[in-house]
């Protein structure tokens, strides 16, 4: 393979080019700024959609977190909603006046507030990730998927049934709002009626999560994730500690679900086991797959697309569709609620993406190379990094056994 790669022209290395690096930072800064000023745009144009964007950003955090486990480390987790649930219930247990743990006097006073509970639920979810990860490390991909699915079913089932502690079907309500913070002389307080501060809070945590995950990905840890994803045995023989790497993937992935869960609980002032069913795990998975496995921008795009369909598009399109149905006399169109179609859309997204474009809408170049081992296009190979070119050829020469 070395003979072939030396005959290729020097590969274009985007990460070495000054312009590329700064282009990414610039685009990122613009994107964050657009998100940050969105509340003003929303009220100027009278959309009144800020209440939909808050939960959508929570799902962006979830998609970024799941992307660590599924996209970076290649461990298919079908029970990700369990960590979301654990984060949300941790927030509920620590801050709700109706909580069993507060009544029992186990929660110190300083911890019964939003900010310490947020940090605490981040840790709790990470520990839950390790607890799930530890026994499942030696499982093969599809077996791991089913075990995580079982775990994801047991956790909400437990929260539903352990009524004495979790309130059962009644859920936990109310939950602490974030305490007011003073920033640059402005007092920022959080009330149920004011969506703006909530939106910025969630955006802040999403951006924070984004930078944390990007740091992880660009670190040595991120490269070992890619290594075990591509070939576990080869990675292990090169000295990668499989146990540590996989556990860290589980823990880090889960910890962001803990973030998302605790904000979710505080935002809706309510946690209920039904919010964390299997369909939630699959919704998040659909976001990551639609956007592009292994690419954090892909996860964000996927989460926004699916969230947009679910929370905005389906609602907005109902009225024109009903009007059309009334005009044309088609009963189905006149009475159908597009919001009901969401699982059909998610299911179709999974199937179509897997069949036509498994690397997602915004693919990572490395993932694309893995998913299309048959690619022989030289022009494309030139745009890849030297590592990717070599890897492509390795896959070609090994054929079926390479996987």
């Amino acid at each position, binding site marked *: 393979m070395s003979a072939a790669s030396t005959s290729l022209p020097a590969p274009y290395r985007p990460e070495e080019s000054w312009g590329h690096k700064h282009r990414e930072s610039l685009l990122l800064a613009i994107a964050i700024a657009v998100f940050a000023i969105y509340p003003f745009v929303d009220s100027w144009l009278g959309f009144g959609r800020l209440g939909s964007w808050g939960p959508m950003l929570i799902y962006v955090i979830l998609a970024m977190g799941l992307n660590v486990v599924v996209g970076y480390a290649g461990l298919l987790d079908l029970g990700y909603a369990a960590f979301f649930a654990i984060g949300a219930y941790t927030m509920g247990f620590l801050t709700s006046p109706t909580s069993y743990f507060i009544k029992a006097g186990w929660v110190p006073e300083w911890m019964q507030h939003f900010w310490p509970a947020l940090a605490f639920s981040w840790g709790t979810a990470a520990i839950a990730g390790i607890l799930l990860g530890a026994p499942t490390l030696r499982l093969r991909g599809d077996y791991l998927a089913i075990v995580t699915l079982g775990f994801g079913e047991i956790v909400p089932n437990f929260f539903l049934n352990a009524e004495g502690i979790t309130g059962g079907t009644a859920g936990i309500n109310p939950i602490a709002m974030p305490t007011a913070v003073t920033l640059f002389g402005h007092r920022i307080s959080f009330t149920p009626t004011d969506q703006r501060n909530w939106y910025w809070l969630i955006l802040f945590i999403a951006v924070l999560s984004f930078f944390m995950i990007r740091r992880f990905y660009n670190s040595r840890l991120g490269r070992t994730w890619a290594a075990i994803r591509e070939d576990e045995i080869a990675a292990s023989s090169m000295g990668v500690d499989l146990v540590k790497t996989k556990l860290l993937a589980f823990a880090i992935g889960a910890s962001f679900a803990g973030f998302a869960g605790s904000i979710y609980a505080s935002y809706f002032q309510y946690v209920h086991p039904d919010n964390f069913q299997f369909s939630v795990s699959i919704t998040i998975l659909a976001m990551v797959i639609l956007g592009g496995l292994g690419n954090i921008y892909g996860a964000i795009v996927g989460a926004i697309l699916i969230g947009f369909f679910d929370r905005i598009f389906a609602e907005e399109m109902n009225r024109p569709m009903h009007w059309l149905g009334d005009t044309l006399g088609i009963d189905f169109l006149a009475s159908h609620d597009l919001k*009901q179609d969401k*699982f059909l859309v998610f*299911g179709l997204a*999974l199937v179509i993406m897997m*069949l036509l474009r498994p690397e997602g809408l915004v693919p990572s170049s490395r993932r694309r190379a893995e998913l299309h081992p048959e690619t022989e296009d030289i022009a494309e190979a030139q745009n890849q990094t030297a590592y990717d070119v070599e890897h492509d050829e390795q896959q070609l020469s090994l054929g079926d056994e390479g996987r």
Partner: protein
Amino acid sequence: MHFNYELFLNYLIQGLANGALIALIALGYTIVYGIVELINFAHGEVFMMGAFLAFTIVAATGITSTDPLYQIVGVFLIALLGAMIFSAAINFSIDRVAYRRLRSAPRLAPLICAIGFSFILQQIAIYWKGPVSISPPPLIPSDYRTYNILTELFGLETKVRLKPIDVAVFVITIPLLLLLTWFIRSTRTGKAMRATAQDQQASALMGIDVNRTISTAFVIGGLLAGAAGMIALYYNNIARAQMGFRYGLFAFTAAVLGGIGNLSGAVLGGFLIGFIWAMSDGMVKEYIPSWGAQWTNSVIFGILVIIMVFRPSGLIGEHTTEKV
């Protein structure tokens, strides 16, 4: 503590009947996994679609419990056959449209695809019959539904209840299982399936049409799931679009318990899961008052997780090493 035999026997009958249903579904998982190593996640929904078609057929004929018995039996058999063919057709088409193209893709791609299909089928079922639970048209005479064979036929003074529907479950399941055993053991296609399960490349070299054999596996799994759908419809007297998820996962647990890929293991695992299900639903309450049917899911999924983690080859399956 006093052991309540009559209660135990009642739940044992319920467990065996549920176990037979689970065994039929589990066989579909295990046959497909044995050949293509794919967890056909949409299989539970294939089962559910069978139940829904049986519902539609019975409702369309307009035969109800007050009609003569031969008509009732006739409609029951037609619905059973219809459900089997329908489920087989769905399973076959999914394989044809999607899984076949992903044979050489990374292992997780077809699994994710299967999850997508499971959602699509569930949504189609919701469009078809609505999102809530529905009761099938009364086909079995209501006095037969509560008729106790042990008392009525044998004159036994017992609280153990054996109902005609319990018997019907076995009358349908056992011939199907025997037929399957004969098919896999003795027919050419059955032999081809076993050969393909062992080594796809070698069997292709021996002149076996691998794609056709894989399609056959999906068709057989679908037939069994459709039969289970029809039986479940009248055994539980209720159907809903989400029923496939629970049955499907319970059946998958059964298949794993018996060693996935192992046919007799799947049947045994099915009965075992059916037994645990019935005991957790009713019997454990006798000893742990706070226990109830709501914990059954946790118990079975707990078994699933424990078996997969500690004995992935199943309780009775032979140990297979992972292929590199």
